[in-house]
C-alpha cells in the first residue's frame, strides 16, 4: 500500500521536475514564436535557431569556459538567423512559411557542419539551484534541481505580456500584427517592427537551444532537438498568442515529455515508447482542435489569417 503511494508520489514529482526541466526550452522558443507571430509573421525556422543556439552555446562555453557566455552567444546566433529570416520575408511575394522551412534546414545543417568538433569534448554546464536539498529522497532532489534559465523564462512571460499591453513598442507590435492597413495609417513601419520582432524571437529560441546543450540533456549532438522548435508553433496556437499561457502550455508540454521517463523510473516499462510520444500526440491533438473550421480561434493576430 505505502509502496504504491511512494511510487505514485515519485511519478508526480518526477513529472513536475520534468515539466520544469523539459519545459524550459519550450518557454523560450514559444515566447519567441509568440512575439514574432504577434507582429503578424510566422517563423517556422525557430527549430533551426534552437539547434544553432545549442551548438553555438556549447562551443562558446567549451572555448571560453563560461556557460553564461555560451547562452549569450546562442542568443546572438538566434538574432542573426532571425535577421536573415526577416530580411528574406521583406521581399514582396515571399512566403514566410516557406522561408521558415528553408531557414530551419539551413540553420540545422550549418550547426551540424560547424558542430562536428564539439560532439566529443565536454563543456562547462550551466549551474542549477538545488531546491530539493532539504529532502533525503533522491527523486525529490533530482526533480527540484532547477536551472536559473527556468526562472528567467518564468519572469520573461509576464514581462512580455506587460510589454505587449502596456508599452508603446509592444502596442506597435500588436497593431502591425492585427492590421497592416491600420499600421500604415498610424505611421508605424511594418518592416521595422516585424524585423525587430523576428530578431528578438530568434534570440529567445537561441537561448532555448543553449539550455538544451548546456543543461538538459546537457551535451551537443545532432539528435539534440526532438522538434521542440516546431512544436512551439503549435504551442503558441494552443496558448492563444498569450505569453502567460505560453508559459503554462510549455510546462504542460514538458510534463507530457517527462511522463515516459517518470513511469520508467518507477518500473512501468509497458508502453514506454507510447508515453514518450505524448508531446507529439498532444501537438497533433492541438492542431486538430485548433483547425476545426467551425470554432473561432480567439486571440489570433489578424494578419496571420491573410
Amino acid at each position, binding site marked *: 500500500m505505502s509502496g504504491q503511494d511512494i511510487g505514485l508520489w515519485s511519478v508526480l514529482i518526477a513529472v513536475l521536475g520534468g515539466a520544469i526541466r523539459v519545459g524550459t526550452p519550450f518557454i523560450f522558443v514559444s515566447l519567441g514564436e509568440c512575439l514574432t507571430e504577434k507582429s503578424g509573421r510566422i517563423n517556422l525556422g525557430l527549430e533551426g535557431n534552437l539547434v544553432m543556439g545549442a551548438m553555438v552555446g556549447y562551443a562558446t562555453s567549451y572555448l571560453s569556459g563560461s556557460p553564461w557566455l555560451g547562452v549569450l552567444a546562442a542568443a546572438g546566433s538566434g538574432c542573426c538567423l532571425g535577421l536573415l529570416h526577416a530580411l528574406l520575408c521583406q521581399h514582396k511575394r515571399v512566403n514566410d512559411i516557406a522561408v521558415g522551412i528553408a531557414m530551419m534546414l539551413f540553420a540545422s545543417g550549418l550547426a551540424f557542419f560547424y558542430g562536428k568538433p564539439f560532439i566529443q569534448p565536454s563543456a562547462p554546464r550551466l549551474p542549477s539551484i538545488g531546491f530539493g536539498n532539504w529532502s533525503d529522497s533522491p527523486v525529490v532532489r533530482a526533480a527540484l534541481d532547477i536551472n536559473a534559465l527556468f526562472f528567467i523564462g518564468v519572469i520573461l512571460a509576464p514581462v512580455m505580456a506587460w510589454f505587449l499591453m502596456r*508599452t*508603446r513598442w509592444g*502596442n506597435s507590435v500588436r*497593431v502591425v500584427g492585427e*492590421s497592416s492597413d*491600420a499600421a500604415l*495609417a498610424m*505611421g508605424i513601419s511594418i518592416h521595422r517592427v516585424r524585423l525587430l520582432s523576428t530578431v528578438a524571437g530568434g534570440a529567445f529560441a537561441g537561448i532555448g537551444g543553449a539550455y538544451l546543450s548546456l543543461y538538459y540533456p546537457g551535451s551537443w549532438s545532432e539528435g539534440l532537438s526532438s522538434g521542440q522548435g516546431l512544436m512551439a508553433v503549435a504551442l503558441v496556437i494552443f496558448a492563444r498568442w498569450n505569453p502567460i499561457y505560453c508559459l503554462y502550455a510549455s510546462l504542460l508540454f514538458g510534463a507530457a515529455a517527462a511522463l515516459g521517463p517518470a513511469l520508467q523510473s518507477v518500473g512501468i516499462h509497458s508502453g514506454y515508447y507510447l508515453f514518450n510520444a505524448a508531446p507529439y500526440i498532444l501537438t497533433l491533438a492541438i492542431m486538430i482542435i485548433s483547425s476545426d*473550421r467551425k470554432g473561432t480561434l480567439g486571440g489570433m*493576430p489578424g494578419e496571420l489569417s491573410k
Partner: protein
Amino acid sequence: MNQDIVLEAIDIGKVFGDVLALQGVGLKLQANSVHALLGENGAGKSTLVKCLMGYYRPDSGQIILRQKEQVIDSPQQAARLGLGMVYQHFTLIPNMTIAENIVLSRPSLPAVIDWSKEIRALQSRMADMPFQFDLQRKVRDLSAGEKQKVEITKQLLLDAEILILDEPTSVLTPTEADEVLEKIHQLTRSGSLTVLMITHKFREVMRYADQVTVLRKGRFVGAADVTQVNPQMLSDMMVGGESISKPPAREAHASFQARLKISGLQVNNDQGLPAVKGLELEVNEGEIVGIAGVSGNGQKQLVEALSGQREVTSGNIFAHGEIFVSNQRSIDKHKFYCLPEEPLKNACVGNLSVAENLVLRRFNHPAFVYWRWLLNRSAIRRNAEKLIAQYKVRTSGPDQAVSALSGGNIQRVVLARELAQEVSVLVISNPCFGLDFKAVADIRGQLLAARNRGTAILLLSEDLDEILELSDRFHVISGGELVYQTTPAQADLNTIGQYMAGH
C-alpha cells in the same frame, strides 16, 4: 475672401508609370464648409486625396495650407498639420476595443501606457463628441455604421481640423448615412471643422455639401457652389460627352410562372452559426426580384448556397418546381446560373484568355469540340469575337488574359458568357460594384433585356439605388431573414433604412 480658403491645391500632377493619374488638378477648400469631390472610378479622386495626405508626393503643383505652402510627405505630417482622413476600408483593428484603437492612433504615445489614465482622459473628452459609444466594446462587434462613427470620432480626437472622408456612406444604411452626414454638417457650422468628402452620390452632394469639385480622367472639370448646380449638370460633368446607353423599356409579361423557389432555407456561415434563417422566396418568369441589405447579412452565404459552394443546413431550392442541386446536369437542365460578386475571383480563371473564359461553362458542348473530346479552338475564338463585339468588351483581343481587363470589362465578359445562352434563372450579386457609369449602364441594360426575354433574375445588391432601378419588387434582408417586401414604386427610403438597420 481669400482668408476663407483653408486648403488649396494648385495644378497638381501625378504620374504612375506611363499613366497620367492627375494633370493640372486644382481644389479650394473653404473654411468650415463641406466640400464634395465628385468623379467616377479612376477619375483621380483618391490619388488627389492621397497627395494631400502625404501618401504620394505629387510630381508637380503646390499645396497651400492656411496661406502657407507645405510639402506633405507622410500621413503623420499631414496629421500634425491638422489633416485627418477616414478611409473607405476602415483602418480600425477588429480584435481591439474602441478605446485601444483610439488611444493607439495618437502620435505622441508615452513609452509606457497607463491604460486606466488614458481611458479616463478619453472619457472626459467623449462628452464633446458628436457620437457616443461604449469604449470597451471590441471593434469586430460593431456594425459598419458604428465603425464609421468611431473612425470619425478618432480623427476628431486627434484634433483634425480638415477631415477627408472617402465614400463615407458606401457601407451605411440610408438612415445611418443621414445621421452621420447631418452631424458632420453641424460640426462644420459650429466652426470647428472643414470637410472634404469623396462621393458619387448626387443626393448627398445636393443635401449636405456647400461646394463641389468634379474630376474626370485625372483632370479638373469644374467647381461650383452646390446652390448653382443640379444633379443633371453634375452627371454631365462627370461623364463628359460619353454617351450612356439607355436602358430598354420594361415589358410586361402575361404569365407568371415561378421559376425559382426557395423554401425554408437555412445556411450556416464559416463559424457554423446560421447566416440564412428560414428564407422563403419566389422569382417568376420575366421578373427581377431584388434583395437589398447591408453587406454581411447573409447575402454571401445565400448566393454560395444557390451556386452549390456552401452546404444547405435545411430547406429546399426549387427550379421549375423540381428540387435543385447545383451540379452540371441540373444546371444545364434548368438553365440556372449564378454570378457571385467579385467575378475575377469567383467566376473567372484569371490567367486564361478571354476566349477561354467565355466558354468556361460549355467547352465540352458539341459546338466547341471535334469528335467529342478535342477542343475546337477556332470555334471558341469565333464565339469570343462575336460576344466581345456584342457586349462591348474592351480588350486587345480574344487571347488576352482576363485578369488584365478592367473591372467593368471582366463583368461584361462574365455576363456575356452567362447571357449568351438561354438563361432561365439568374442569380447575380453586386453586378456593378466599383464600375464606372458607362459599364453600369451597359450591364443594367443587359439585365433588363434578359428579364424582358423571360429570365427570372434574383438580384442581390448592397446598392439600394441599383435595387430600386432594376427590380420589379424587392425584399430587405437583415440578419439572414427577409424582413420587408415592397416595390420600387411604393418604396419609402426611411422605412427601408429602418429595416436594413435591423430595427
